[in-house]
């Protein structure tokens, strides 16, 4: 199978996390991704899209899905036209703190960094471009 690219644009509304997840799951199905990889990609979509909806001010989000069939790797590129925001510039939360000392928040992007094989951010003109890479096996 060749590499391919698909893309989808959704309004910046929380409920569209379902649309994005289904789009990605259906598109990846022919490659028989592991249950774990698919779940982790779903978590990444949830975290990254909900951040765009909450903070970016962008009215929509474009998700570009690229699969490299040779090495069974998916690349998801999230593009919004909101305020410049690099989620990777924040320091990681201290995950050794007790429940009482834990802060609510800051966990989502940290989680994405941990469960994806690669995460990159760049500002491209007036766009935020966040890319995650994940092996499907």
């Amino acid at each position, binding site marked *: 199978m060749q590499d391919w690219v698909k893309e989808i644009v959704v309004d910046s509304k*929380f409920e569209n*996390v379902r649309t994005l997840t289904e789009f990605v799951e259906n598109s990846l199905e022919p490659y028989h991704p592991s249950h774990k990889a698919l*779940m982790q990609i779903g978590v990444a979509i*949830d975290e990254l899209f909900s951040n765009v909806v909450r903070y970016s001010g962008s009215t929509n989000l474009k998700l570009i899905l690229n699969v490299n069939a040779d090495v069974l790797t998916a690349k998801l590129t999230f593009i919004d036209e909101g305020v410049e925001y690099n989620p990777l510039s924040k320091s990681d939360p201290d995950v050794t703190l007790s429940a009482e000392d834990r802060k609510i*928040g800051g*966990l989502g992007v940290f989680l994405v960094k941990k469960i994806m094989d690669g995460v990159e951010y760049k500002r491209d003109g007036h766009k935020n471009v966040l890319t995650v890479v994940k092996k499907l096996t």
Partner: protein
Amino acid sequence: MKIEKKVDASNMSLALEGRLDTMTAPLLESEIQGKLDGVTNLEFNFAKLTYISSAGLRVLLAAQKIMNKQGKMIIKNVCDEIKEIFEVTGFSDILTVV
């Protein structure tokens, strides 16, 4: 997501089914917030929960903080994928997974 809730005196159990994410975490929050008065045993059953994101972790953390003051909270039947999410976020040290 589906939530099955049972309350018996000071015991509350919540069985979750489906995805605990940005969309559904507020549902769980509304089942817990302000409703734990007098509860000393809180039990979550994750047997049918397939998925958790940080929105779900936040609700569990809030519940754990309350239960640390007034009793105990356990989570049972956690699948390996969710256990891994607990581990990388340090939640396995905060929560009691049995």
